[in-house]
């Protein structure tokens, strides 16, 4: 066996953000190992995240290849995942891949959830040139977790992982 079960599971990469490991993405809740096998608990990023099926399969495959016996992958949805759980190394790797990492997730105030009638004025630094005054092109990108932005300084479009 190479490494502990937690190390093996943590090193599996996300199918849609392959520069990130599952540990860096913050979706692993628990890895428990006993004589019966390995029990992995994960949480989805979004309710409809289509990557969940392959993440489960990738975890089982990685554990099998590393010599662990029976492996079960369970899902928990509470408390809900937040981009605040992405690790520092995960944020650095996102930026290196040209995806601006998320800022701090919005804090829920008491009372009705406020509505935004214009794109949120988040300060997102361009991952290429570092210019901070970038603008939203489209609130939804290739996946629900990414929006499309543009940098007026280097004139390049880039993706930004939205805060949730």
């Amino acid at each position, binding site marked *: 066996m190479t490494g502990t079960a937690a190390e093996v599971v943590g090193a599996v990469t996300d199918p849609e953000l392959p520069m990130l490991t599952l540990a860096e993405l913050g979706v692993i809740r628990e890895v428990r190992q006993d004589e019966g096998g390995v029990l992995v608990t994960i949480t989805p990023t979004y*309710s409809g995240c289509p990557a969940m*099926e*392959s993440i489960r399969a990738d975890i089982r*495959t990685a554990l099998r290849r590393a010599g662990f016996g029976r492996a079960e*992958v*369970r899902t928990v949805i*509470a408390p809900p995942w937040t981009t605040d759980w992405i690790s520092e190394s995960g944020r650095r790797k996102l930026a290196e891949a040209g995806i601006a990492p998320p800022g701090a997730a919005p804090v829920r105030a008491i009372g*009705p959830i406020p509505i935004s*009638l214009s794109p949120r004025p988040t300060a997102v630094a361009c991952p290429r040139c570092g210019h901070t005054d970038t603008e939203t092109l489209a609130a939804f990108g290739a996946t629900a977790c990414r929006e499309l932005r543009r940098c007026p300084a280097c004139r390049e479009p880039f993706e930004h992982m939205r805060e949730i």
Partner: protein
Amino acid sequence: MAFDDAYHALTDHDDDARWAYGTGFTDPLAGVPGDLPDGVDRAELATYCLMLGDDALILSHRLQQWVTRAPELEDELALANIGLDLLGQARLLLTRAGVSEGWGRDEDDLAMRRDPSGFRNLCLAERADADFAHLVARLFALSTWRLALLDRLTASRDPMLAAIAAKGVKEVTYHRDYAAQWVVRLGDGTPLSHERMLAAVDTLTPQLAELFHSHPTEIGLASVGVAVDPAALEAEFTQVWTHVLQAATLLPPATSLSGGTSRGNFVAAESSPPGGDAVAAEVSGVPAGAEQGSARPWGRAGEHTPALAEILDEMQGVARSVPGGVW
């Protein structure tokens, strides 16, 4: 998974990473305890989960129909992503419904093997959109209503419903923002876009009473702290609806809602309440719809417009023609 042989990759069945109906999707609540809170009727909880799950499933399908037809590529991405979020919420809720009823039905059985009369979604979720303005008006109304509901449902005594709601709140928050921003952009846009946005809102408004018409299942489960009585959502809904319509120049800035304008006070302003009341009117000797216009079907009770059958024909077509098919 190797991709040098596409057919091999498709038939690499040692995992659950296959993609279509009947091809090994795992339970989205895999490993989550199926316990029910004390004193809650299984059948009632199942029905309630179907109501919220069917709203998401049917609206998701309607949004998917806009992909390749939206005005801009960016909006196709937005609608597809919103539809995907709703589909995810539907999967969780239908799975919970199946567990609650205890007959062994899973999410696929419930989505693909029910007839229109078994669906409990709001009729507002199933209607077709005449144009993009109708789409964003309807999406704005349903997102506003669903967000207010899910926000309250996070306090449900059913831990699964509370968890599904907490996840959904984050998603429906940006669904509502997206739709509201389009309502404002079109309403406060050119004379033509204003006219069409106004027409969409005027078409939609008489249909909104359904959102606040409580079904006995909703009232019963709300009384034991499991569900949210939709009648309790009208005040918050009206506040958001009015705020956005005013920003979109579709309502005069200082409209008082208590005055019963044509675009506020939905239940009071409705000329023909859905099903239950129409039946009551018939019993009392007044033919339903005789004086109040024709009765509207009540989605929560399984009554639907012909639009739902059209959706299900498309959505269930493959599953019904190849039952249990695997490829």
